[in-house]
């Protein structure tokens, strides 16, 4: 299941105005009829002590004598989810907050009612806005119920008491009247079938026919979620005690990869940002190794919950402030990983790894990702930081069967070397070590290209260009070696990295008389697919718009042992769908 980019299939949708309200008045209580007696916060509820949060939320959420606020104290969430809540409060509940107050509330709640690193790591894809196939395998019914309308990652970004999960479901039912029925599937029409029918037709029912399988879908989901994602956890207990202000100022080596453009390397400097709690600024310069293009980048960021970097590029001549940064700071403070992304649908991204630079050399990676056996003088550029001016070939270690024959040049951040690979070198990945620094598997050793594959294997584009922006999709062809066993699809298969291929589209016949290929868009020889415009197309039967699905095919001409040219083909599936007519992203947490 695609974890994001899913349309909300609801009867009514929430209007989402921008969070920023210029010159907003001070927080005002929402005007609403009196509530029944206030409900109790659970005993395990987390106190809210920040006066900013108390002021902003206190007119509706009452606080008990233990400083626990209704609803809020019984919940933990990622910064993105807290932001969604604040947006909903402002757009639907008449809450008025200045931008600064809204940001302060999100920051405070993310720190005191957030997720521990162990809880957030598995769902980092959600904040990183990655288009991946992800399902909550622990309970497929819950996965299906929630992902009918939104990413299951959004759900897994929450921790709540059982009562609070119940209230979350109630909120859904209030705003979306049709959600109980077929569109949402929260409830089936009536009681479960009788015991006899249940016994014949389904498994899991007890003698009364009201076993676990008979719970209403929403009740089953509530039970699963409250068991799997309770308010309190050992991880949060430990992290909330250990959490501290991150010490990140200094130099960092950048290693990145962008589909279609290849690896990039450079350096980045992080500085403390005056006047912003856990705020930082960055300045960086990096180079795409394939083209030599150099990019300067500045950004500002806030770290939430001690480990969640949320940044946004600052305006520079090279960048109009459109890049966002979502990164995970490792607990040792020496490495940061994540994604920088841009585009109307966050579709253009760089996978980023930052390694802290002190006084010793740091190896970041190489420009090539595969070395051929029985070949000499293969040119490799090694990127990093603090490289000495003079380097001996023997100091650079690529492991068994691979020998650096010559150091061509050396600069503080790049070593250019020639490498010989023995004819009998074992096929497989190699680590690279230099000057006390090492990096895992920057290259693999292979004997021949057996196949090619196209990534992403399942792409998505969105029509646009008239009223709505489009979502292009970049594809990349990568070489594959079947490894030592010569068999495809086995664990020793090797990814040889990107290669230059010819690109074409083929029809993916999903329906009879399928004609999508004529309408969906264009594929450039760079592997970049640009979708057609949105809206009904009078030239298409039924006046349909230009959606559809097609194969994206890469053809690579490999030279065979006898000198002949042997075309290799790989393909990926591309779904071209409608624009997202509304936006639900969390764009403020990086400001």
């Amino acid at each position, binding site marked *: 299941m695609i974890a994001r980019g899913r349309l909300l299939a609801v*009867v009514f949708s929430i209007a989402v105005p921008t969070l920023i309200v210029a010159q907003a008045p001070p927080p005002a209580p*929402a005007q*609403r*009829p009196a*509530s*029944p007696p*206030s*409900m109790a916060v659970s005993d395990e509820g987390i106190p809210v002590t920040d006066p900013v949060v108390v002021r902003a939320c206190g*007119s*509706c*959420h*009452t606080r008990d004598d233990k400083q626990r606020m*209704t*609803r809020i104290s019984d919940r933990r969430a990622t910064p993105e989810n807290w932001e969604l809540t604040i947006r909903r409060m402002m757009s639907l509940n008449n809450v008025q907050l200045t931008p600064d107050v809204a940001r302060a509330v999100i920051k405070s709640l993310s720190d005191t009612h957030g997720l521990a690193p162990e809880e957030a790591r598995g769902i980092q894809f959600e904040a990183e806005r990655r288009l991946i196939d992800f399902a909550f395998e622990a309970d497929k019914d819950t996965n299906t119920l929630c992902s009918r309308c939104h990413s299951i990652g959004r759900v897994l970004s929450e921790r709540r008491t059982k009562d609070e999960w119940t*209230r979350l479901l*109630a*909120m859904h*039912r*209030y705003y979306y*009247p*049709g959600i*109980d*029925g*077929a569109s949402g599937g929260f*409830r*089936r*029409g*009536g*009681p479960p*079938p*009788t015991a*006899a*029918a*249940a016994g*014949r*037709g*389904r498994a899991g029912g007890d003698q009364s026919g009201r076993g676990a399988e008979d719970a209403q879908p929403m009740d089953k989901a509530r039970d699963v979620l409250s068991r799997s994602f309770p308010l309190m956890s050992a991880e949060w207990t430990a992290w909330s005690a250990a959490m501290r202000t991150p010490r990140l100022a200094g130099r960092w080596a950048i290693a990145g990869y962008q589909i279609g453009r290849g690896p990039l390397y450079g350096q980045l400097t992080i500085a403390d940002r005056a006047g912003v709690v856990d705020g930082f600024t960055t300045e960086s310069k990096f180079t795409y190794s394939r083209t030599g293009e150099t990019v300067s980048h500045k950004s500002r960021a806030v770290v939430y919950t001690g480990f969640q970097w949320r940044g946004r590029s600052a305006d520079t001549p090279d960048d109009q402030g459109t890049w966002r940064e979502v990164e995970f700071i490792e607990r040792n403070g020496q490495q940061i990983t994540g994604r920088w992304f841009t585009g109307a649908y966050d579709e253009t991204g760089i996978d980023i790894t930052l390694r802290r630079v002190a006084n010793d050399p740091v190896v970041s990676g190489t420009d090539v990702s595969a070395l051929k056996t029985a070949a000499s003088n293969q040119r490799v550029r090694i990127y990093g930081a603090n490289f000495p001016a003079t380097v001996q070939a023997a100091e650079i270690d690529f492991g068994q069967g691979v020998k650096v024959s010559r150091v061509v040049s050396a600069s503080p951040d790049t070593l250019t070397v020639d490498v010989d690979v023995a004819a009998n070198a074992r096929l497989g990945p190699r680590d690279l070590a230099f000057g006390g620094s090492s990096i895992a598997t920057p290259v693999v050793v292979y004997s021949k290209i057996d196949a090619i594959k196209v990534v992403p294997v399942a792409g998505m584009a969105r029509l646009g260009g008239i009223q709505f922006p489009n979502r292009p999709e970049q594809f990349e062809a990568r070489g594959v070696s079947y490894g030592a066993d010569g068999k495809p699809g086995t664990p020793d298969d090797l990814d040889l990295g990107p290669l230059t291929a010819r690109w074409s589209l083929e029809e993916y016949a*999903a*329906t*009879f*008389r*399928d004609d999508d290929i004529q309408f969906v868009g264009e594929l450039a020889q760079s592997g970049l697919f640009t979708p057609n415009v949105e809206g009904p197309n009078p030239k298409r*039967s*039924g006046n349909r718009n230009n959606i559809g699905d097609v194969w994206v095919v890469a053809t690579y001409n490999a030279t065979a042992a006898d000198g002949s040219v042997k075309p290799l083909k790989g393909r990926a599936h591309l779904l071209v769908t409608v624009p997202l007519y509304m936006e639900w992203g969390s764009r403020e947490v990086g400001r």
Partner: protein
Amino acid sequence: MKRTRASGALLVAAALLGANLLAQTRPASEGRLTGGNGTLYIGGYPNLVWIIDEATEKVVGTIHTKGGIPRRLNLTRDRKLFYIIDATQEVVEVVDIASRATLDTFKLTEGNKRVRINSIEPDPTNRYAILLTRTAVKMTDRVDIGPSTLLQYDLKDHKIMRTIDWPDGQERDQANLMFSPDGRLLYFLGNEVLIFETETFKQVDKWDLSNIEEGLGQVSVSFGGFGGLDTVYDEPGFLTTTLTIEDPVQHRRMVGVAHIDLNKKDLDFYTLGPAGGVNIVLAPDHKHAYGLESAVGRYEFWTIDLDQRKITSRAEFAGRPRMALKASSNGKVLYIYQAGHTIDLYDAATYKYLRTIELDGDVTTGFFVVPRQASATK
């Protein structure tokens, strides 16, 4: 399988009705196949119900709803009124079809308490209505969703007369309601049909259709969704609809026709083939039904001979991704509608596409085909 116990009188009535229908189905213009002389009703955006003359296929009028976008049309048995539920499910509007005038609107929502009406059925005298509701109360820091509640509502005094208790205290929702022809019984139509008497609204019987016959697995009967129940072509007290079962031994899902006699609590059903996503609608002659099978990119019309209990023909046609089917008042034209602003007409005998009725807005409700004879005689 169970056998039909329809009375001889009903068969005679059906035959007479068929004869009447045949008499009225002379084409309006020579050489042009039309659906008959009835009237078509369908609600849409914004805030109206289109009235279409079946013979000319022209929009001859509109009913402008005051309650908002119509989402559900309930046609009274005498074909004189529509009870319309709006898209918020909070407003009911009573419309006189002849004058196209709104007679009444009401809602149960008050202040921060929203009362959503999932289903409505007026009693045959239009003195009161039965509402299937659920409340949603917004409070300062949360919302409370109430139980599904069955209410008797006084249409004149605009008061809730009583709350009808659920059998076993177990709530139901998402179901359609129907009164018996004499108004003495109320049927709550789901896989489990609840039967209430209408003096004190005590449950007097329960009919579990999901466990209807020894040896069969789960039985599922369709009574229409939120779009509402259309009984225009059914004899009073009867329902003809789609049924799926899980067959013995091989546990395949099979689809068939269910003919339900609510009065005698008798279900006659038979299978037609594998359950693939077909919906079955009754033809006005009561001898045939039509099926619309819809899979991705593959759409079929079926014709079912109800006497012979078999499919007599089926054929693919160029449908649309979301659609629904109705038979014309003379049974000679099939209407394809839903998800758009068009109603496509097909020849029921050949399945050949005829033409399209275009509306000036997207449809939002179910579609009613009301024969002239029916509206004139009832």
